[in-house]
């Protein structure tokens, strides 16, 4: 190829920019700042391409040694050019300059330097590098251990680490979505585009995902010619055809970051990362969950660096990236270039550089015998070809100024240059094929790992399968797309466009022996070849050990430019082959994913849904303080002016219920309608107690056991008709109890005729409790219904109407120990009924009460609740042993007779009051015999529930105590080391109010 006659024109305001190359929008110029200096660029640039256009190569300082770093690549594999983008609440650290799209007004800063990028104090770490070798965490600061947290770790964290995240809340919104497709094509390069075209012929659903803003992949990067025209024109025509098909979706700026089971893929779409501020309501990023019947992996390949001395200097760049900057962005990254390669990719690199007007100083080809293609380009370009030579060291500090070269004969040559374009071969981007366990296979001809076993439904196309040349990529794409939609053997074929065959010959070279200076393997985590050697010497030879000991491959780039080189070096020094040495498998995510994107809508108060009870609005109007109970938001207490704290309020609420009447929303209890000819038989088997004798129009307390004999849930069972029951469960177990009953009906006893339907939310249900509850209800219940004690005694239930004909249900049940009712109306009337009750209650001095007073009153009555129904207790433990039927079979009966379950030494429920009545009790305190040492061996049980009892004027408690019922009157110690409590308590019967239980009957 002849040298271009005239050097291409450059932009006077961007010294490295060619005015007529690339796919950036040259007609528009936008401005951005980097470390406070304003530069110009074009829409379509990345931050990296724009910096390079302005001659800026120094981008940051490295993680550990604070070495100056430049721009190594042009894609998401970038380990070096990590910047802090934007400012204020949108400031984000560690953003790859090579993938961040430029927008007008973008503010970018370098990281990990102080006071400036040019002069960084911490670069002294580089001189201490003997100390900061692999494993230094473990070795250097072993002793004394106490100093680790206080001194060493904070100091290391300050010195190392990269950017700073914003402290402010993220002002942007994120969203998540699901897509189902017949074919997912991952990668929009030549292979992916062909696959999409072929698959789209079938009319099936196709989703094409590409990481970049513009499709085309390496065809654009390489400035390829396809079907006789520039790649970008071919890409445009393919895009137009795909866009015309209704079932093809193209997702640009989207990275598939993970493969999951069942053909599910995770993808992140950067919807608005390329603008300063998203428009109102528009998401910054969108997380896609894509469920695909087939997937075509067309992710291409990532170029490998070569490990040589000071190979991290700004100005050492991957050859493919050099071509990308020239062909995609119209930017020449350097003017005097040494091309260093072990393969024929150098040929097209040299061609592009010369066409872009750069001076190629030399081709340094490590292969002793030049390939035909290399010889041809060297002679046509008039460039010096050094075969069998290697670059041993890059010269210069903040920018490459030259290359030290060892020729085939061993002579040392020093060449001046400002750019060293390196190609060590290509690694197929196989990560997504390994996420669910696929093992890669080493290919000795191509010198790379290829996907081995593939996840179900995955096909390969293009470079990821080792098809490095363009014609092969195009052909394999067409095949994969057709196969992905084929029915059995029938598959469509589409014409494959023509392109020139490139030579991809390669000979191994991983690192240059006998180099001087530091030679980096993993740039982002500052791991050098000597760290790999050190790991080997210290026995960390397995790849998984090498990785963890050196931190190799553990940075945000997942070691995409590092892993294979490290492995090859380890293979070399241990005298093994690469397949013998092994390969670490990649895990998702392939690129970093913001937590905000994973959360989507579900953050802050939307983290999980909130369930509001029917009287919620009214309760808030009353000033209720609410508490989360599961997903429910329930009124906890209703403070009134002049009450100094919650306890003051709760005392008033309890006293009002015990002396007048109170109203409480109990709609959150699970409610289940059980019907069918065998409903009674079914409930007999589900509940531990006898229900056969339950008459129509009556309710009874019931308990359910788990199969293992442990108490599961409790509630009431009401019988409305011969074959119709209405049961309640605890709020917490509403869903589980329904599932349990469904399981019993569908799986254990399918022969029973029983239907179970949830009715939890159909009814707004309020407890009306207190001596004046009946008088209050008389004003609500329609007059034709008799609610006198004779007509509606304790445990009566009935269907009634209220407030002039609204259908309702009335239950005479009591949790408080007072005369009490629960009244239910269809939920849409819930708010109105509460307001009616409130108005009607005025003359009786009624109060509203919440979960706090509810809890106090049930403790005063010794009723069990969540703390006692804690998944470890038996009916006997909680004092309900007598309820358990001995005459029928039921779930949990058999296993409930095991020795451990019936052990008389199991602590049993009993009440407690402090010996010194002024002392507060704490739940969680453990019981010890008076004078016993506080050891686990002496533990006799624990306090489960405590409350200040307004009825008694002191604290009371419920708890489990060994032989508790036999020890009434005894004094024991309540020991609470967590909160420093140590109190003497008296064992009392677990009923603190109305021990005869007379009040509930009126």
């Amino acid at each position, binding site marked *: 190829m002849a040298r271009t006659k005239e050097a291409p024109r450059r932009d006077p305001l961007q010294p490295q920019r060619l005015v007529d190359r690339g796919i950036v929008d040259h007609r528009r110029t936008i401005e951005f700042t980097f470390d406070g200096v304003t530069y110009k660029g074009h829409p379509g640039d990345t931050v990296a391409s724009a910096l390079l256009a302005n001659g800026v190569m120094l981008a940051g300082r490295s993680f550990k040694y604070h070495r100056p770093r430049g721009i190594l690549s042009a894609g998401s594999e970038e380990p070096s050019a990590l910047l802090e983008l934007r400012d204020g609440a949108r400031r984000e650290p560690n953003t790859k300059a090579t993938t961040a799209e430029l927008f007008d007004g973008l503010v970018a800063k370098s990281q990990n330097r102080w006071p400036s990028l040019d002069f960084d104090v911490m670069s002294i770490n580089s001189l201490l590098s003997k100390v900061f070798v692999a494993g230094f965490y473990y070795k250097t600061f072993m002793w004394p251990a106490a100093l680790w947290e206080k001194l060493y770790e904070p100091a290391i964290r300050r010195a190392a680490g990269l950017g700073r995240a914003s402290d402010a809340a993220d002002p942007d919104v994120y969203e998540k979505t699901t897509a189902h497709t017949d074919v997912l094509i991952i990668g929009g390069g030549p292979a992916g585009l062909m696959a999409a075209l072929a698959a789209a012929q079938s009319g099936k659903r196709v989703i094409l995902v590409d990481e970049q803003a513009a499709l085309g992949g390496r065809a654009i990067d390489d400035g390829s010619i396809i079907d006789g025209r520039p790649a970008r024109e071919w890409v445009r025509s393919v895009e137009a055809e795909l866009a015309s098909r209704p079932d093809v979706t193209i997702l640009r700026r989207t990275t598939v970051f993970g493969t999951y089971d069942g053909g599910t893929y995770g993808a992140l779409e950067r919807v608005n990362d390329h603008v300063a501020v998203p428009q109102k309501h528009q998401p910054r990023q969108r997380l896609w969950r894509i469920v695909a019947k087939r997937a075509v992996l067309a992710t291409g390949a990532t170029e490998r660096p070569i490990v040589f001395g000071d190979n991290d200097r700004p100005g050492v760049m991957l050859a493919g990236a050099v071509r990308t900057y020239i062909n995609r962005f119209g930017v020449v990254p350097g003017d005097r270039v040494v091309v260093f390669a072990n393969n024929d990719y150098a040929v097209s690199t040299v061609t592009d550089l010369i066409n872009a007007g750069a001076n190629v100083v030399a081709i340094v080809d490590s292969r002793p015998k030049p390939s035909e293609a290399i010889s041809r380009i060297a002679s046509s370009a008039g460039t010096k070809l050094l075969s069998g030579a290697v670059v041993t060291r890059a010269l210069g500090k903040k920018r490459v100024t030259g290359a030290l070269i060892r020729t085939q004969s061993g002579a040392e040559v020093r060449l001046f240059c400002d750019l060293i374009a390196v190609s060590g071969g290509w690694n197929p981007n196989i990560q997504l094929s390994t996420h669910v366990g696929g093992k890669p296979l080493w290919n000795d001809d191509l010198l790379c790992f290829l996907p081995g076993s593939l996840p179900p439904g995955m096909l390969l196309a293009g470079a990821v399968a080792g098809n490095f040349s363009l014609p092969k990529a195009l052909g394999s794409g067409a095949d994969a797309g057709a196969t992905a939609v084929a029915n059995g053997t029938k598959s469509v074929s589409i014409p494959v466009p023509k392109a020139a065959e490139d030579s991809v010959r390669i000979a191994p070279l991983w690192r240059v022996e006998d180099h001087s200076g530091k030679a980096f393997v993993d740039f982002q985590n500052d791991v050098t070849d000597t760290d790999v050697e050190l790991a080997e010497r210290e026995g960390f030879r397995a790849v998984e050990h090498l990785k963890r000991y050196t931190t190799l491959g553990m940075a945000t780039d997942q070691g995409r430019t590092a892993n294979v080189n490290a492995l090859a070096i380890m293979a070399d020094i241990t005298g093994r082959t690469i397949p013998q040495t092994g390969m670490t498998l990649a895990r998702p995510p392939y690129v970093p994913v913001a937590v905000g994107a994973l959360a989507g809508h579900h953050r802050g108060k939307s983290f999980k*849904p909130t369930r*509001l009870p*029917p009287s919620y609005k009214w309760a808030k109007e009353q000033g209720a303080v609410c508490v989360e109970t599961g997903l429910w938001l329930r009124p906890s207490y209703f403070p009134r002016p002049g009450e100094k704290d919650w306890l003051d309020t709760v005392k008033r609420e309890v006293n009002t219920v015990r002396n007048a009447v109170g109203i409480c929303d109990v709609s959150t209890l699970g409610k289940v309608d059980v019907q069918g000819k065998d409903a009674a038989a079914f409930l007999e088997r589900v509940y531990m107690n006898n229900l056969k004798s339950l008459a129509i129009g009556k309710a009874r307390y019931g308990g359910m056991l788990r199969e293992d004999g442990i108490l599961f849930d409790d509630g009431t069972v009401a019988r409305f008709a011969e074959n119709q029951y209405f049961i309640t469960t605890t709020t917490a177990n509403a869903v589980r109890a329904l599932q349990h009953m469904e399981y019993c009906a569908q799986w254990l006893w399918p022969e029973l*005729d029983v239907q179970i339907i949830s*009715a939890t*939310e159909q009814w707004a249900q309020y407890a009306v409790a207190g001596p004046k509850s009946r008088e209050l209800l008389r004003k609500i219940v329609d007059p034709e219904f008799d609610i006198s004690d004779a007509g509606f005694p304790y445990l009566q239930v009935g269907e009634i109407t209220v*407030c002039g004909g609204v259908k309702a249900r009335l239950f005479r049940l009591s949790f408080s120990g007072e005369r009490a009712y629960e009244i239910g109306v*269809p939920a849409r009337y819930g708010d109105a*009924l509460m307001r009616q009750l409130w108005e009607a209650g005025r003359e009786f001095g009624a109060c509203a009460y919440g979960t706090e007073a509810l809890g106090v009153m049930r403790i005063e009555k010794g009723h069990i609740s969540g703390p006692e129904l804690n998944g470890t207790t038996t009916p006997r433990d909680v004092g309900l042993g007598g309820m358990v039927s001995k005459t029928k079979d039921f779930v949990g009966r058999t296993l409930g007779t095991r020795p451990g379950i019936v052990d008389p030494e199991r602590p049993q429920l009993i009440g407690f009051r402090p010996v010194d009545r002024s002392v507060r009790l704490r739940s969680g305190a453990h019981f010890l015999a008076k004078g016993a040492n506080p050891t686990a061996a002496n533990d006799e049980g624990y306090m489960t529930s405590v409350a200040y009892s307004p009825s008694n004027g002191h604290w009371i408690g419920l708890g489990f105590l060994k032989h508790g019922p036999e020890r009434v009157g005894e004094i024991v110690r309540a020991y609470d080391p967590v909160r420093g409590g140590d109190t003497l308590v008296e064992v009392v019967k677990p009923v603190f109010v109305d021990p005869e239980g007379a009040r509930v009957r009126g």
Partner: protein
Amino acid sequence: MANMLKPTSAFSHLDPLSTPSLSVAPREDLTMASFAAGKDQVQAVMATIKSAYGVDLPRRPARVSGKGIAFVWAGPDQWLAVAERGANRDMERELKSLLSAMASVVDQSDGRVVVRVSGPLSRQVLAKGIPIDLHPRAFGANAAAITHASHIGVIMWQLEDASTFELAMFRSYADSFAHWLIETAEATLPATA
């Protein structure tokens, strides 16, 4: 005595949305009842419904509609009947009188609330909270599913119209669901400058 109780909406802040590409509106005018066939009564239930309403109850997730009524599959041998309440229609009462000995009937008019989402963007909006395949070839006219939307359990169905969906959920979730739906709708509608 006249009814002194006025019904209230479960939605405290769902302003109906109506744009050419998307509409969202609560349907608070429905009467609904769940019914489950008794043992060995499925054929009898189906025959009774067929003779009363002229429709075949679906045996798989789907919806059928007859004159002024629709039935949505809600589980094996179980359906949700949905109709407009009108003056005083009560689905529970209606079905109980029809199916007395064959099925258990439970009122759901208040237990569940229904939201209608319609318009060309409806699928795109719903896909942002619902994991199942909503493509017209997978979920078309009269399709039904029991799934979840934004972590909230729903029974959903499509009407005959290709882009009109109704979602039924437990009443207490109404506000959380509406919050998600409106936020998602705003993010999906074309940006306003």
